């Protein structure tokens, strides 16, 4: 065990985290026997470090005993430790945390070593990068990162580069584990206090991420938070345009990827934050009542056989939105949001997209999901709106007629 640990420490001393790209566990090897001339049984190929699965338990147990023995002495009085002991504390905690980043006491000792300037902050960030490459959602590693970042910021000469690196690490962690709450929250902590330009570019990159990760609700929620901070920024000059563009974009996503919940949540969110951003009032007017029932009738209408290409449908949808919504709204000094029209258009457009993909086995389920989410969306937006009891009742009847709906839709 001691030899395994010392080989691993020797490897990391010669190849510190800042020279490594990726860390991971690899299949077990026949012999864990160390060889002086190499790093066997560890793999090091072009900056990729691999630990064989059968080396993990002995490595953990040995580094654990080294670490906790020294850590207890250190906590009692750090001055009683020799320089070599402090180096050992660094090596053993590094080894331990690469195997199990949840041992928060080991991160804490490293914080103390950083304060004593026994460790270098930039190199420490590289170690966290390496740990996250294997363990992208371990909260203690993210917590250590959040603690370290402001310290690096204080001494950094290139804040933009520092923050851009944070976004890169968050994106990688998000790619490695979908719906990674810690990665998206860290990204938000980095972005929310950044200058407007940085937030705008972070928003752009998140939108790009969304376009290839349609079920990543975390990314949509993050985009919405960043968008709100941009819309509320007094230095941002075109909030209405950006808002309209986002409404349109989310509707296009809903139509292009029918049956997915995330883009609907985003559209819902746009309506709900618009008031807080001083952009619109949600108006339920007479025309809404005329539109009532469209979703229902589309749902039961038989396929008429007409074929549309996806592009046609998008153009049609875009023209419809431009014509009916924003022209009207600007005259009235705010964005008029005829709730039911939105959902109805989306459903009509979706139907054509789904028809154009006829032959796809799941199209029936997709269609059912899309209708279900649309009804849910409509009812949801009426929450807390006065004077629409009759509309709610009608919608609930639709829900009931369709059968098999969640009980809360009928309870509200």
């Amino acid at each position, binding site marked *: 065990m001691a030899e395994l640990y010392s080989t691993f420490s020797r490897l990391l001393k010669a190849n510190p985290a800042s020279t490594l790209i990726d860390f991971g566990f690899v299949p077990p090897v026949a012999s864990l026997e160390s060889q002086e001339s190499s790093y066997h049984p560890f793999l090091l190929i072009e900056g990729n470090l691999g630990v064989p699965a059968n080396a993990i*338990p002995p490595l*953990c*147990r040995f580094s654990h005993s080294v670490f*906790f023995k020294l*850590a*207890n002495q250190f906590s009692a009085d750090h001055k009683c430790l020799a320089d070599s002991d402090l180096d050992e504390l660094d090596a053993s905690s590094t080894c331990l945390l690469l195997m*199990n980043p*949840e*041992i*928060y*006491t080991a991160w*804490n000792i490293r*914080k103390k070593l950083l304060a004593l300037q026994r460790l270098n902050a930039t190199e420490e960030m590289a170690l966290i990068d390496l740990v996250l490459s294997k363990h992208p959602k371990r909260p203690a590693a993210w*917590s250590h990162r*959040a*603690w370290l970042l402001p310290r690096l910021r204080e001494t950094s000469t290139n804040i933009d580069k520092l923050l851009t690196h944070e976004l890169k690490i968050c994106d990688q962690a998000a790619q490695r584990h979908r*719906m990674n*709450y810690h990665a*998206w*929250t860290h990204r*938000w*902590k980095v972005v*929310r206090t950044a200058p407007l330009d940085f937030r705008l570019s972070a928003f752009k990159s998140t939108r790009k991420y969304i376009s290839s990760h349609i*079920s*990543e*609700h*975390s990314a949509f*929620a*993050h985009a*919405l*938070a960043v968008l*709100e*901070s941009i819309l509320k920024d007094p230095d941002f000059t075109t909030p209405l345009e950006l808002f309209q563009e986002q409404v349109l974009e989310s509707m296009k996503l809903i139509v292009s990827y029918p049956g*997915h*919940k*995330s883009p609907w*949540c985003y559209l*819902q*969110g746009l309506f*709900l*934050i618009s008031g*807080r951003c001083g952009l619109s009032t949600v108006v339920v007017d007479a025309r809404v009542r005329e539109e009532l029932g469209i979703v229902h009738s589309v749902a039961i209408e038989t396929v008429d056989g007409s074929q549309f290409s996806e592009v046609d449908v998008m153009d049609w949808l875009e023209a419809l939105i431009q014509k009916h919504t924003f022209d009207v709204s600007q005259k009235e000094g705010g964005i008029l949001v005829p709730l039911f029209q939105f959902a109805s258009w989306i459903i009509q457009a979706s139907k054509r997209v789904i028809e154009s993909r006829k032959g796809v086995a799941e199209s029936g389920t997709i269609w059912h999901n899309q209708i279900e989410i649309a009804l*849910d969306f409509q009812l*949801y937006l009426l*929450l*807390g709106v006065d004077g629409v009891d009759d509309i709610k009742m009608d919608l609930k009847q639709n829900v009931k007629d369709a059968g098999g709906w*969640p*009980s*809360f839709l009928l*309870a*509200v």
Partner: protein
Amino acid sequence: MTPKLAVAKHVTYVQELDNKKDSFEYWAGEHLRLNGVYWGLTSVHLLKHPEALDSAQIIEYVMSCQHTNGAFGGHIGHDPHLLYTLSAVQILATLDALDRIDADQIATYVKSLQQPDGSFSGDEYNEIDTRFSYCAVNCLSLLNRLRQPYIDVDRAVEFIHSCKNFDGGYGSVPGAESHSGQIFCCVGALAILGRLELIETDRLGWWLAERQLKNGGLNGRPEKLEDVCYSWWVLSCLSIMDRIHWINRDSLVDFILNAQDTEGGGIADRPGDVSDVFHTLFGVAGLSLLGYPDLEPVDPRYCMPCSVIKRLGIQ
């Protein structure tokens, strides 16, 4: 066919956790052992088998995790943290052993973690999270120290309220994505503090009810898989807000029961997976909230037996 709740198997499962000391998995979970003890102890209490574990032994173990500042670490030799301090206080409260600790000292420690904006850091290193607001509020409530000169309750409420999102849910910090675990922490803390009027009940209830999937299980966020622990995080909030009837009770009960290991005992995150003590507690607690027969009633704010909360004189 859905099996019945395998009470005896689960009790044995929890009893035997400690006999696995030599296994690497058990050993590797050392840093949160104190949480594990809370999960196991609360499980057997809710299963109406409080005699299954040795109280004196547990109390000695808990005390061995305490530091000189009154706070607790996750295990002997691990640093103090609010997460483990709450578990320690919950365990001691359940075992009627709060006289073993100095409540004023712990309340002073908790106070030292409150930030000017009312939020709480988990330890001295300033990580802010609404989970820690919950830990602080729950812990001080159990210790009957939810008042001056300890924490600033109004500020604590203000911070939690600032984490409310447009969808009615709550995240870990202001603006972070709504997450059922964080929502439980915020709603639970507001319930303990008697400030439920700050919650958008219908909007949040809707969001929570939407967590139920076709197979009856609940997920923690949109587009996630169902998971037994969310039976607790989601259900406890719906219960606090009196909206438990918004989800389908029978299909959720079936989902939890199908996630049991009816041979080896314990409950897994979902049917077919390996059981663990964390999901065992939250599965059993969820069943208790759903009114499953012959279980001890659970308090949705504290995730502890109602009888314990009553004994402490908490309303």
